[in-house]
């Protein structure tokens, strides 16, 4: 029992330390939250959605390297401008946001997007291996094509939790096929596949 008490106490101290950490971080959090809005109110649904008036663009039109690289890629500013120097927007709000692109182009500056989806630095996720077997982007990222401005992750995304990855590696969705056409029944759950 004495041991229990000791260990409980130790855990309690750690808990308190955690609370202190959260409180300490609170102020910072507020600043960051106010800054968490995207630099341009980019609506994924307007581009990739399939409702009336939406443009049904393929995800990989802009995220161009998902099929051939570990990184999915984010579109260069010139790619945005490629369409938007013609497509100027139909509402004042749209026109105002699209004008921002021109500002970035004119100043030769990148658009400082806030990163929403990220797995830890100690895990390596090769997009191309997942995309080429036929996984939909939505399987991990959620129905991003239905979202307006993206400021938080879809609840479907579990990238903070390795079990979420492992579940899928053990029981992949039906219909995935390797490059040679053979069906994929399971993927490796070896640690070193992602961690090195």
């Amino acid at each position: 029992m004495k041991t229990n008490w000791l260990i409980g106490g130790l855990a309690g101290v750690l808990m308190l330390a955690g609370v202190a950490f959260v409180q300490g971080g609170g102020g910072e959090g507020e600043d960051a939250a106010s800054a968490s809005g995207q630099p341009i109110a980019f609506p994924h649904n307007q581009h990739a959605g399939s409702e009336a008036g939406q443009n049904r663009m393929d995800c990989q039109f802009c995220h161009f390297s998902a099929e051939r690289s570990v990184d999915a890629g984010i579109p260069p500013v010139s790619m945005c401008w490629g369409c938007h120097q013609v497509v100027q927007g139909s509402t004042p709000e749209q026109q105002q946001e699209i004008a921002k692109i021109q500002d970035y182009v004119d100043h030769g500056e990148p658009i400082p997007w806030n990163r929403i989806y990220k797995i830890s630095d100690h895990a390596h996720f090769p997009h191309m291996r997942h995309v080429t077997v036929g996984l939909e982007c939505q399987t991990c990222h959620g129905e991003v094509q239905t979202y307006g401005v993206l400021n938080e992750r879809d609840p479907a995304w579990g990238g903070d939790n390795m079990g979420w990855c492992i579940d899928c590696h053990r029981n992949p969705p039906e219909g995935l096929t390797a490059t040679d056409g053979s069906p994929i029944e399971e993927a490796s759950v070896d640690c070193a596949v992602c961690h090195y």
Partner: protein
Amino acid sequence: MTDGIKRRDFLKVLGASSAGATMTGCGPSEVEKLLPYVVQPEEITPGVATWYATTCGCAHGCGLWVRTREGRAVKIEGNPDHPISQGGVCLQGHASLQHLYNPDRFAGPMIREGDRFRQGSWDEAERLLAAKIGQNTAAGRDVMFIGGHMGPAMSRLVDEFLEGVNGSRVEYHAVSDAPLREATRLAYGVNELPRYDIEASDFLLSFSNDFVDDGSVADDRGLSRMHSVDEGEHSKGTFAYLGPRLSTTGLNADEWLPIKSGSEAVVALAMAAHIAGSDHSGPYANLLQAYSIGDAAAASGIDEDSLRDLADRFSAAERPLAMGPGVGGHHRNSTAANLAALVLNHVAGAVGTTVHVGGGSVAASSPFSDMLKAISEMASGQFGVAFVHGANPAYSLPEGSGFSEAFDQIPFKVSFASAMDETAAMADLIMPDRHFLESWGDAMPRKGVHTVQQPVMQPVPHFDSKQAGDVLLAVASHLGTGIGASTFYEYLRAPHQAMHADDPTGFEQVWREHLRTGMFGMGMMGGGGDTQVPELRVPDRALTFDGPSFDGPGDLTLIVHPSPRFRGGEYSNSPWMLELPDPVSKITWHSWLEMNPATAEARGVREGDIVTVVSDHGAVDVPVWVYPGIREDAVALAMGSGHTEMGRWATGAGVNAMDLLPSVAEPLSGGFVTVGTMVSVTPTGERRRMATIEGSSDQRDRPIAPAVAFLDLGHSEDGHADDGAHHGELMELQGYGGVQPVPAQDGASTAYPLPGADHGLYANAHEGPRWGMAIDLDKCTGCSACVVACHSENNVPWVGEDQVVMGRDMTWMRIERYYEHVDASHASHLDVRFLPMLCQHCGNAPCEPVCPVYATYHTPEGVNAQIYNRCVGTRYCANNCPYKVRVYNWYRYTDENVPEPMNWQWNPDVTVRTNGIMEKCSFCMQRIKDAENRAALEEGRDVRDGEIVPACQQSCAAEAIVFGNLRDPDSKVSQILESERTYKVLDELINTQPAVNYLKKVTFHEVSGGH
């Protein structure tokens, strides 16, 4: 206690509490930015490496393939199509990345104001320089240009520039081959270095020629190919080293004749006389009559029989080759020594087969006497402006040369140094040059080999640098002495454009092909040099072959040699170079004085004692390292340490050997004399702990790096010449009953459980590959380039001198060096074993069962993996590892030691580890994954043999390392391991079943100990 809390419950509670802390910690407060390109460069795909072909920076001019990620150079590899380097890269080549991202580079042009420098703009600096040159010319004074190694185009430009400003130029190299060049001119009338074809030779003599230490990957490969055993042919070349001190090169020899410093010429001539006999005619007939083996024995301290025997065997060899003293053995008579070696080659029939006159390199052979002449001219006040480019004479010349005083008198001194060094510190204007990885240029390492140097990335933005060629063009244009090109790029292209003006494909297409291959033009792959045997000529200058003089009253000859890590000192400000264990001494960071054990004992000096070394020219305090590979009458000190103004790492590390040397040029060639002074050594009474990684230089009768005698090959009963399990302590240990040999497994080439076998910790039904490695100890030359390649590829941090002293070095791979037989007292066989030691990826790994959190485990493909995010840092695994290949991050080395922009070098494919984490060789897991991804993606197939090349194997010029699938009987690694020389380190002692297999070294003498 049974109802007490269980370990797992404790971990759960602990986990929950810390998760509570971290989850709230990772809220929106950690917004990370995603920055797209404004305009995506066509050749860049994020996450995919882009490779560029270029040429390395030193005079060897090796071809490189540079790996870039998102526009940053992250790894240097060899260009396998380059006719000379053939894919190898030396230590300094890898470390060039650290010079590129060196935080000590200048932020921009620096203009002196009193005692300090002020950063100016390029326009200001160029106008200032033009104005100063204008005033100088008006005052009737001249311009001096002191230049180090540069490519042909830059060299041409400098000459054109100097023509317009009444300038004169002196070439200066801290380390040069001038005596060999003069010897070749005297012997054959050809004012070029000859080309030695080491690979073609079957009997190699090196007279203090340290060609491996010198960084020539072509020679390294040549040695490995000629000297390693060919089991099919049952042949192996012989290598004998004649010199007072064993360098890395010398440690590879089969026999060592520890001749006295300076006796090379007499020994070579006596051998030539012995071979030629009395009926030899020709210009050297009389000379050869004058030297006998007896003379050589008296001069060298080696017995007559050994010399005669060596001469007989050299003469009997089909393709002998003798190499005169290289850059490491310059004494006051080294031209004669090189000439004597050429005569020996001539009478032995080597010229035309292994020695090719003409076609060698003409670079880096300018004489030191030119520099001395320039110094006296500078002192005369004739020059008003001096440039220094690619050289650091204020550091690399002895004080007696008077360089600093003379240079200081020049009214306006300009340096092109990209980071501070001793010479730049004296300058009035510093115009920081670009690193070669940011520059345009060309190189001609040998006649007929003309290669491209192209920028592999945009200049590192922290430093406002400008290529020296562009600066000269701009200044010339300000002065109105225009050279006809506005940029150096244009200047470089112009002659090629003229040459290909009529090319039907158009010049741009031709140029792109040049850039892709890294080569100007094709059809220049020939060996270079004449296969005709030129006539020996009567020397057109008087010379003597007798031993040189040494100055000073001391009782020990001081051998100063270029460092295998820093060369002459230009590579010193790199933590990789500083922390790399020296290939000979295994010491990092600081300097040491090499001293024979008998000499040390006679003086009551122990290893680590700090001694004062005094010559007539200066004194230094340095710790002693006791080394059996040096004569009793000599001590040795490496160049390249003891900088006073060279960035945060090199400054203050070690002592400068130049402080002990006289400023003497060899009379014939004008080469700098580095072995020319006597010293006395007295203990200071102080001691230090050496920053070494070596535990022991003795195998203590354990078969760690065994050898097999050449004559025993092919005569073993069980196909394995000697399983090494029957010797000394091993037998004793087995006598205690705790250690039993592994039961034989039907002669399987690997002890790892094959499909179906239920042996070992991991019975494995996996059908995939079993990754493994073969390392041939008969090929390894100990050069250590693999170690630096590994650091570069795997984000291995450096820890600093203090931490190395505490045994906290973090290298994933080390080259162990064991002495079996090293005797400096007389001529005898030499037996030194180099063993590249890395994680053995044991099938039965002792580290795995002791990890409480399963952070280390065995992958189905046979790799012993280390999962950093699971590791909690108990270090049990390292304690249980019999190979000492696991290293621990005691501090946040990757944060605290790595200033911006040095971290730009990090490989984005490998996790950067932090404190509290154990790490080790992963078999370059990222490269395995990359090859698997590409194979699966492109063709939906498995990886083919040879597609996965770990960084160490890629870098190995000696071709000693081969990686592959042990389970595939047709893979190259499996084929190699068919050899009867195959063994696994300590396997029979502790049953670890490693995936790393070694091939025993082959010796000509009978193996007595340390099988």
